[in-house]
């Protein structure tokens, strides 16, 4: 397929003309802003700086202060924890439910359609629902705090560690049904005769899963884990509008740190430096994604 498609046309100029509008758009709205962020991160610019105020070049000073900032290091830890927990819980729940649905039963189509709902539901609308559900005085989950063995009286979104748990649960609600559908598609691609052969050989359900199912859905598994990681890393509005990064800065992931450092603490230069660190992360994730793709392609051919 690959070879066939790439040799259809050879045309000296046309592909460049075709891609020119995208390249211009990305140059203006992605590449140029990135150069601006890098430049600002090397200065001492503040948000309130007047137009004629002199901005000094300070070299790597901002990066140096990041290295020694406990808030920044905490933010890195929060980002990683949030992303990894997303991968574990969302992808895990997606796989489990897919295995459950991967049988013929009445109403399966309906359940599959239903599973796309949270993914398609906009972030802001989801935030409104969860703020209501978690409301400590009247929320349907929030009022449970009277009956729990641990103290959640500080509020599900306003005290630690419940704020962090809440944003994990929200992200999980929003993503795992989608992962479940993707897993289901992969599970249905597992050859039936292989499973049958394993049964004939006396393999139990668990062994069948380990030796037949798991190897054939591994590429999907790795891909979804990476997607979940990216989703968590990019997530801004759901966290920002529920906890704002708080209480204290306990739910402030990297992307929130960029925003809060600029708009709450007015330190534009430091915010840009955090942004640049984020860009490096993005680059590494993209490279990981590529490596995965090429490995998957090799194993296919």
């Amino acid at each position, binding site marked *: 397929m*690959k070879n*066939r*498609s790439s*040799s*259809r*046309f*050879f*045309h000296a100029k*046309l*592909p*460049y003309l*075709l*891609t020119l509008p*995208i390249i211009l*758009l*990305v140059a203006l*709205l*992605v590449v*140029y802003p*990135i150069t601006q*962020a890098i430049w600002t991160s090397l200065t001492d610019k503040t948000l309130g700086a007047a137009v004629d105020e002199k901005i000094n070049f300070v070299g790597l000073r901002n990066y140096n202060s990041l290295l020694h900032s406990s808030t920044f290091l905490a933010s890195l830890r929060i980002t990683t924890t949030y992303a990894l927990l997303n991968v574990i819980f969302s992808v895990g729940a997606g796989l489990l*439910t897919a295995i459950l649905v991967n049988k013929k039963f009445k109403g399966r189509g309906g*359940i599959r*359609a*239903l599973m*796309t*709902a*949270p*993914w*398609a*539901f*906009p*972030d*802001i*609308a989801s*935030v*409104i*629902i969860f703020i*209501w*559900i978690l409301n400590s005085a009247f929320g*349907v989950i929030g*009022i449970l705090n009277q009956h729990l063995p641990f103290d959640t009286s500080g509020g599900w979104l306003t005290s630690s560690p419940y704020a962090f748990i809440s944003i994990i649960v929200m992200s999980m609600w929003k993503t795992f*049904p989608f992962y479940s559908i993707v897993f289901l598609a992969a599970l249905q691609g597992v050859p039936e005769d292989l499973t049958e052969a394993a049964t004939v050989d006396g393999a139990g359900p668990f062994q069948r899963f380990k030796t037949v199912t798991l190897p054939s859905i591994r590429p*999907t598994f790795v891909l979804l884990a990476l*997607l979940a990681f*990216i989703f968590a890393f*990019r997530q*801004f*509005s759901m966290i920002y509008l529920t906890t704002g990064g708080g209480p204290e800065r306990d739910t402030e992931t990297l*992307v*929130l740190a*960029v925003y809060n450092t600029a708009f709450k603490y007015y330190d*534009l230069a430091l915010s*840009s430096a955090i*942004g640049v660190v984020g860009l490096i992360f*993005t*680059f590494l994730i*993209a490279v990981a994604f*590529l490596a995965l793709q*090429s490995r998957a392609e090799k194993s296919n051919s």
Partner: protein
Amino acid sequence: MIFLVSLLVIFPLYWMLVTAVQAPEVTLRYPPVLYPIDPNIKGFHAIFIEKQMGQWLINSGFVAILTTILTSILSILGAYALSWFKWRGKMAFGLMLLFTQMLPEALIVIPIFKIYSNLHWTDSLATLSLIHAAFVIPVGVWILKPAFEGVPKEVNEAAQIDGCTPMGVLRKIIIPLCSPAILAVGVVAFFASWGEYLIAVTMISTEGKYPASVGLASTMSQLDTPIQTLLSGAIVYGLPPVILYMFIQRFVISGLTAGAIKG
């Protein structure tokens, strides 16, 4: 078991529907009433009359339509270049798309705002759609590329013998044959823009120009807003994408998971 899971998935949405039509004094009862008693639509009335929900939805629709048109056209051209041509820089182009797709907007929204201020492009719904398009085009290209590649070579050869130019092949053969995938790109672009909050709230400052995401978030931050009003807003804003996505889930899955950039 699976029904229990579906129940957990659907409960927040169900609870939104119930509370939105529930009388305020019922929502404050303990233990919570799990079904509507004496339902009313005062919340819907309030979000449209006391707030500018109608205008906000129109604004969102306007931005989303522009984003959809732009994304569809540019993704078709980009996917055509990636799937049917051999050229230097193809790999770099794919890499650029992939990086853009994974980039958190929050990292560069401030420099984008500065650029827009200098161009006097802020507080405009039309220029907002440019940014939305830039971030959703990669997904569009990944949805279309495998579809374009699936068009049989023979069709193309026959067309060329008939004197079709490369652009003619795209227009007369590929686009008609791949229209379901193109439609999917349109839907994805529409709702990516429809759901976007951060860029919109940064760029748009006039309340009458708010897209629904920004309008609802600002209503939410006014602490005296009744929950029925907020949830009614969430329903009219959030349910259309849910219903449409159910129809196109197959394409969305392939687009989001197929970031292959090998040519």
